[in-house]
C-alpha cells in the first residue's frame, strides 16, 4: 500500500513539566516505529490558549507531529496511547496525503497552464494587478 501521511496534534496539561512532555514524545515515536511507521517531524508549539475549556483548563501545551505509515495500525496504537496518558487532554489525527496529492496536482496544472500561455489577455492582467493592490 501506498504510504500515508498523518498530522498528529496532542495537547498536554499546561502544568506538565518539560521532561515529561519529552517522554511522551519519545513513547509516541517508539510506538510508531515499532508498528512500522515513521515520525517525519516533531514540533513543540508550547503553551497556548485554547479556544474553549477542555477538562476545566483554558491553556494547553501543544505538540505537533507528522507521522508516515503505510497502514492505519500505527494511528490506532498512537491514539490508544494518547488516550490512556494522563497528561494528554486532547489529540487529533488527520490523514493528509490525499489532500497533499491534490495540492500537487493543482500546482502542476497551474504551472503547465502558465507555461503554455505566458501572456494571455494583456488588457485583463493590469486590472487584475490593480485589484489586488487596491484590496491589499
Amino acid at each position, binding site marked *: 500500500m501506498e504510504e500515508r501521511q498523518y*498530522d498528529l*496534534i496532542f*495537547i498536554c496539561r499546561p502544568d506538565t513539566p518539560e521532561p515529561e512532555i519529552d517522554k511522551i514524545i519519545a513513547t509516541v515515536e517508539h510506538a510508531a516505529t515499532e508498528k512500522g511507521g515513521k515520525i517525519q517531524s516533531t514540533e513543540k508549539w508550547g503553551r497556548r490558549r*485554547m*479556544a*474553549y*475549556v*477542555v477538562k476545566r483548563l483554558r491553556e*494547553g501545551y501543544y505538540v*505537533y507531529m507528522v507521522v508516515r505509515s503505510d497502514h492505519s495500525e500505527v494511528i490506532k496504537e498512537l491514539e490508544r496511547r494518547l488516550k490512556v496518558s494522563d497528561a494528554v487532554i*486532547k*489529540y*487529533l489525527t*488527520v490523514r493528509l496525503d490525499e*489532500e*497533499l496529492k*491534490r*495540492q500537487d496536482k*493543482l*500546482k502542476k496544472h*497551474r504551472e503547465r497552464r502558465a507555461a503554455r500561455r505566458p501572456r494571455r489577455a494583456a488588457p485583463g492582467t493590469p*486590472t487584475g494587478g*490593480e*485589484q*489586488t493592490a*487596491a*484590496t491589499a
Partner: protein
Amino acid sequence: MADEPVSNPPAAPGAGAPGGHAPSGYHPRPAGGPGGPRPQGPRPGGPRRGKRNFVRKKKVCRFCVDKSDFIDYKRAEILAPFLQERGKILPRRMTGTCARHQRWLAVAIKRAQNIALLPFSAEL
C-alpha cells in the same frame, strides 16, 4: 406537445426583464473595477431615478487571489476572519469565497475546532 413552442418564448422575456437593470447600469462604467473611480450619487438622467442606487462592490475569493491549493487548518489566524462573532462559519455570500475554497475552508475550520484552535461557539 402543443405547449412546446409556446413555453419557450415566455422564458426569454422573463430572463431578460430582471437583467434589463444590470446592463443599463454597467454601460457608463468602462473599466473602473472594484476600488476604481466610481460615480457617486444619482446619475443625471439615469434610467432609475426613483430607485435606490445600490453599488455593490465585487467580492473576490481571498484564496483564489493567493492561488492557494490547500487551506491549512493549523493556522487559526487565517481561518478566524471567516467566523462570526459567535463562532459560526460565515456564508459564501458574505465573504465572497468561491465554492471550491469555501468547501476546503469549512473542512479546515472544523478540524481547527476539534483541536481547540478555534471555538465551536463563543462562551457566555
